[in-house]
């Protein structure tokens, strides 16, 4: 699509959508959001980019093949699940670490659950882009 307005706007919109997607991903545990929604928002950003500037440029901007991103996400999610074996817990039991924990403050939590959510994010992001790019290139 050769629309200058769309291309210029996309430059800002895509970046905004990507940042917003990470924000959605990270707040997901306590507020509306999460890996699935985050992945969808992130994918939207690149879909927009692909529509405005073509898939060649979108692929270049992405640097990695979207299939690989999806597979990596699946691997991260699996690793997050397997991590509980080190603690003799059942598969996919969340493991938590609280940095700077005090009596009345839990501090900064880090958990395998977050990594699992990141895996979900990457799977959704990569899968959608795999499909969209392939379809656009075929037309």
């Amino acid at each position, binding site marked *: 699509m050769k629309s200058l307005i769309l291309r210029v706007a996309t430059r800002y919109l895509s970046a905004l959508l990507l940042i917003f997607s990470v924000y959605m991903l990270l707040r997901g545990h306590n507020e509306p959001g999460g890996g699935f929604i985050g992945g969808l928002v992130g994918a939207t950003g690149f879909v927009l980019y692909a529509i405005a500037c073509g898939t060649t440029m979108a692929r270049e901007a992405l640097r990695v093949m979207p299939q690989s991103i999806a597979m990596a996400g699946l691997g991260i999610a699996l690793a997050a699940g397997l991590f509980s074996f080190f603690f003799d817990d059942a598969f996919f039991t969340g493991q938590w670490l609280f940095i700077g924990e005090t009596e009345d403050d839990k501090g900064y939590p880090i958990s395998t659950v977050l990594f*699992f959510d990141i895996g979900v994010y990457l799977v959704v992001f990569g899968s*959608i882009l795999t*499909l969209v790019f392939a379809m656009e290139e075929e037309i």
Partner: protein
Amino acid sequence: MAQAPDRSTGALDYLVVRKIYGNKAPQSGSDETGDKMAQATGDGPKSNGILGPVPVLIPLAIFIWSLSFIGPVSNGEVVRLSYDWVPSLGISLSFLIDGLSLTFTLLISGIGALVMLYSNTYLAGHPQYGRFMLYLTSFMLAMLGLVLADNLISLFVFWELTTITSYLLIGFDNESAKSRRSALQALLLTGAGALALLAGLIILGVAAGTFEISEILAKGDEIRAHALYLPILILVLAGAFTKSAQFPFHFWLPNAMAAPTPVSAFLHSATMVKAGVYLMARLHPALSGTDVWMWTLTIFGAVTAVFASVLAFRQTDLKQVLAYTTLMALGTLTLFLAFDSGYAITAFTTFLITHSLYKAALFLMVGCIDHGTGTREADILGGLGRIMPFTAAAAALAALSMAGIPPFIGFIAKELMYAGAVEAATSPVFVASMALAANALMFAVAGIVAFKPFWRPGQPTPVEPHEAPWPMLAGPIILAVLGLIVGIAPGLIQGTLVTPTVAALLGSADEAKELKLWAGVNLPLFLSLGTFAIGFVLYVFHQPLRRTLAAIDARAPNFDRGWDRVLDGLKALAEFQTRLIQSGVLRRYIFITFATLFAAIGTTLYLRTDLPDLEGIEVLAPKQWAVVALIIAGTISVVLTRSRITAIAALGVVGIAVALIFIMYGAPDVAITQLLVETLVVVLVAIAMLSLPFLDKPGRHDHRPLDAVLALGVGTVTTITMLLVLQQPIDLRLTEYFEQTSWPEAFGRNIVNVILVDFRALDTFGEIAVVVVAALSAYALLRTTAKEAQ
């Protein structure tokens, strides 16, 4: 270009692409000769690097580790290791080490180590060496799991793992159509048998009240008297017979020779094909002793043994000859498992060990010949004794054991077989004569395989003959010499392996008979002498006899071709029903799907005849009415427009209106997801729709009225169902549970997300796996069709 001695060699042709020019033997590596695998080693000093031999350490470590069990097991101890796997179904990952499983473990790991060492040279520089070793190691571990499993279900899992890994190994040369066909044939046939086996094992477990094999074996009388004994037996034997290639399921085994030679050596000596024999031996205490068991095994075993020996005699490719002798061995082992006398079971055990030793040695030896000469044709090979002295020595030792000549272990095994046959509970005359025929043919075959290629004159071979390097010789020589050592000193395996195995099968170590070279002048000795005499005559006249057999064989029904016809029939049936059911018109599919939905729900509603109570339904607020209006407007646009893009956009409006409903009723997560998915779907579908024509004009074949009726019908029954659902009291236990535990236990306030990533993370994992698979499949589909279109 003169016609080369290019005989029709049946199954060999696919591997051997011969181009022999006149009488000149082509130079090594400059020609496409011999086993494709061996060929990789032909051109110069290639190797797999220093990591090449590392996999050998795995079987070696297992071998040494299992040696440590010899002490306890020979004292009659039974070692059990157990780990709960699926406790709710009574399935545990438990292992049982007794004489039988230890014998198999030692054979598998010991021969495995030698085969891997051999492969490192045989496949030196092969581009897929790493893949090969991965398959081989996985196969070996699956096989070890199978023989050590003490639970019917885990045994079955390992059983199927051997099926799958052997499929990969047989089809290793995946560019050859013949290779792929053989692999698929083995997979389908043993896989079909395995389905029967699964059913049999489950019934057995239910009948016995436990899935632990060690407990089942103690309940033999109870199982034999059980009403379901016969179904159990038929199903289990169906699995064992297909796996161990008993007649009439034998034909996959010779085809499996498409695998590289080290694989054949491993699969057909101690492992894959012995799995069925192992299963029958394992369940022998629980299932044997009835007339059905005895007669079934006697007949199948004997027929397989004799039939296979005759066919072995008929082959000219050395590897095919060995393949059929493997069938003979499997038949013999099955035959002796029919009985529960001490002699029969001792014969079974001794022959099991004997066969594994000499068969692995012979297969590896044939690989050396192939590697050194570029051919495996019995009629061409000759005079190699001086050029390949070590191969010749290994071949001679292994073949003497196979022929059953003293002082080799093969002789002792044969004597015990005759002793077992004479006291056979079914028909001693039948069993003894069958054993005699099979053994005499084996004697002749031993001569064809190991005497003629080395010490009789032959024809020029495709490659200038040369001796194999030492890593390839180590295996056959060690195994062949072992056959001699345990023959001279049978005490080495008597107390350590044979007696504990017999004890595992018969329940008492006292039943085991002594292995000795000189058992006195008795009937077995005379039968042995008869074997030698008949075997010698058969060897001398083997070439004219082979021609006669080939003529008969050509007229006999061909199982392999029959198999093809079965598969073709199956494919034709699939094609027929696909054409019948799958019209390919998307609209028709959707119509049928929704019509079925309507019929199913409508019938249920009609039969239950309760209508929703409309009282108490809250009145909609103005903003809710607005959303409803939006949905209706969107729907009407979809129905009326002729532009696909408009239709898609209008459908998007409906989806977004639904998202608004979610927001109104307090489900922001669902609403956001719905919004995003709706947006992406519109984009995706719009891209796809760009190249499609306008929607059909309403013409003569107007389907819209019918579609409208169906749509209204589905809408009505869905609405009624929803209203009925609302009248049911809602069970809030789950909601309450998540509300209460979400923060204290999973440290999250967004319950939807906590459920997704923590409480039900396994489900989510399954779902994202599906997403990835779907995306990759769609990608592959798009790419293939795009390529075809170009």
